[in-house]
């Protein structure tokens, strides 16, 4: 019990700290990976709350997601390395206020609401997995299927949005939209402080 309490506190602290780091650092890759570690700490938190399947799943999924996040940062930010140390925030005071207010409100709810009796023991991991499987393919199959369809739709929609608009008409060379490779190269270029010509004409 004590150990569980300690672990929950520790991993929760780690998650929050990394979450803060996400918005404190200048280097975009750092912030993406900080987000990753915050999510991983959450996975560990789930594990210490005996939700084994969820914990492992969280740890597995978030790694890929956040790495992709990182590469997008590198592609789309003007200063992914954070060498320029430029500030990329606005309406700071309002945001801080909103964050604090929501935090305090949530904590207040958490403290003052009477959560009723607390269950001591959770079913063991294998049993949990079996139950979850039966639940997914049994009572809440419809929800599960809907989630799957939703993901599929999102994939298709994202691809459709992201496809290069005029892929086949290479006639106007100078007004060709910026392609991902150029973005990657330019990200690299900015990162290294060198400048290689040849992409600038495009």
């Amino acid at each position, binding site marked *: 019990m004590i150990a569980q309490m300690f672990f929950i506190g520790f991993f929760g602290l780690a998650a929050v700290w990394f979450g803060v780091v996400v918005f404190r650092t200048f280097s975009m890759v750092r912030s993406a990976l900080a987000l990753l570690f915050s999510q991983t700490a959450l996975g560990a938190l789930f594990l210490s709350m005996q939700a084994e399947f969820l914990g492992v799943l969280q740890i597995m999924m978030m790694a890929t997601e956040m790495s992709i996040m990182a590469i997008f940062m590198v592609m789309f930010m003007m200063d992914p390395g954070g060498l320029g140390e430029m500030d990329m925030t*606005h*309406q700071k005071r*309002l*945001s801080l206020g*909103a964050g604090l*207010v*929501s935090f305090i*409100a949530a904590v207040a709810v958490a403290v003052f609401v009477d959560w009723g009796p607390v269950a001591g023991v959770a079913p063991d991991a294998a049993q949990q997995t079996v139950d979850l499987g039966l639940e997914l393919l049994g009572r809440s199959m419809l929800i599960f299927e809907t989630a799957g369809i939703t993901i599929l739709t999102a994939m298709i929609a994202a691809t459709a949005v992201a496809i290069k608009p005029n892929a086949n008409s290479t006639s106007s060379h100078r007004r060709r939209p910026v392609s991902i490779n150029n973005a990657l190269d330019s990200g690299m270029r900015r990162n290294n402080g060198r400048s290689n010509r040849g992409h600038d004409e495009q």
Partner: protein
Amino acid sequence: MNLIATAILAPLSMMVLILLLRRLPAVLALLGAAVSLIAGIGLLSNAFNGVAGELILPGLPDMPLRLVATPLTAVLSTLVAIISSLVLVYAVGYMKQDSEKVRFFATMLLFVSAMQTLVLAGDWILLLAAWELIGLSSYLLIGFWYRRPGVRSAATRAFLYTRSADLGLYVAVFILIANAGSSDIATTLNTSGGVAVATGLLLLVAAMGKSAQTPLHDWLQRAMAGPTPVSALLHSATLVAAGAILLIRTAPMLPSETLLVIGIVGGITTVVTGLIALGERDLKRLLAASTSSQYGLMLVAVGAGVPLAALLHLIAHAAIKSSLFLGAGVFQHSRGSTALADLEGAGRDRPRLFFGFALAALALAGIPPLSGFFSKDAIIAASLASPNALVLASFALAGTVLTGAYMARALHTLWRGETRKRNIAGLGWMSAGLAGLVTLAVILGAAFPSIETLLHQSLSENTLAQILGLSAALGGLTLGWFIPGQRLLGPLLPWAQQGFAIAGGFDTWVVHPALAIARSCEQLERGLYNAALAVGRFSLDMGRAVRWSDDRGIDGLIFSLVRGTVELGNRARTLQSGLIHREMAITVVGTALIFVATFVVLFI
């Protein structure tokens, strides 16, 4: 009981494989059919050893889907497997030129597996599903050459006919399940009384649709638009057979009144479609019409209370009719058309093929010792033995005579006339399939006693029936050979050639009434329209009066209100910046306000 699963899954998996690989479809299709055939034979041997298999899959909560291998279903599934594999062998040759083999063989396999499911189904729900699958795949197959003119409409027509008749099956099944409280066919079979009569009639409707009984016989002839192997499969052992199989399986529960209705419908069908066949100008359409008439004979047998005879005739007819169709397909390839006028003398080109065709035709006419003889005699004997022998027997005999007549007509046309020989691609495969089927058609008669023992029933030997049947068949043959069909029909000719549209036909039964209703509706519409116009005029006058009063007074009020709204809107627009972060900030603040408001409302 993995044999059942194999019999169904083998074609299905092969279909999936074909669709995945998109390569060498013929080989895979033959493989699937062969495996399913082996499984079917295994089932049959089990049935001979008295082992009745059952495979129960988890289905609806308290109605599991089940596949059963009783002797009857085992025999049927073996039949389906044999016919389909031989037809597939033939199709390898027939489709040699076609560019879309993948689609063709995949659909055929889907069809076969659906039919196996239907035959082996042990409960109504699975049977319904298989029924629908058959309808779908037959639609796909009939419409296979969907680019050719008329094919699409033919496919759609066939689909709609069967569908509209399927309603009967649905209602019947729901009644049965609701009545017996279980979806198992065996348990539902011992319902009786009024429910049995009603469901029997409904099932009859479904069967009429699927096996093209009058007045729903029209679609079958149009369905000739599909490739020949398709029509061979459709007509012999699968689609059309489904109706008869349905009635044969439910025969134990049908009361006498329903049986009489069934018999009469079958009888009418066999005569009417027989006449149509006599008047036909196209070989395949002739065969199609004869199919309906043969199934009419089976219904007569069912109506006479001897489903066994119907089953035997179903089996014999399956082999015979498929071989006839395959022969017709060869002739079609050699002459490039199926019109009898073009086919004159096509038989002389290939005497061996014609010999096989003729054997099958004689078998259909019921000449001993070919298989048709025994089954037809069984039917005639059954009709003679039945309580209302007068009606049924006369129908059966008439059907036999007509059968002989149009078969002889077809043979006559094929034999007379000059020969124009032309080489055909893939003749080897085709004649292989044809030979196998003809052999079946010839020797199946020998297998009937064993089937009777398998089903623990026996047919009453009746010499009178044999004499009558034989004489009827011979008479029909002579008539058809020596007198051309048109003359034979006499005054009936025009009706027969338009498929007895007045005697039946979908159009008179549905289309004209629908049109009449539409016309009356249109009249009503017109009246309403005029009334509405009158009301409109009146209200227009009212409106003029009101506007005259409106212009004074009320407008001022309205306009001021409008101005106020517009200004409010302009103020609101400044709030809406289009910048994501500001929008989000507004959202958050708004949510917070909502929370506070609810809190206040709830607790203070």
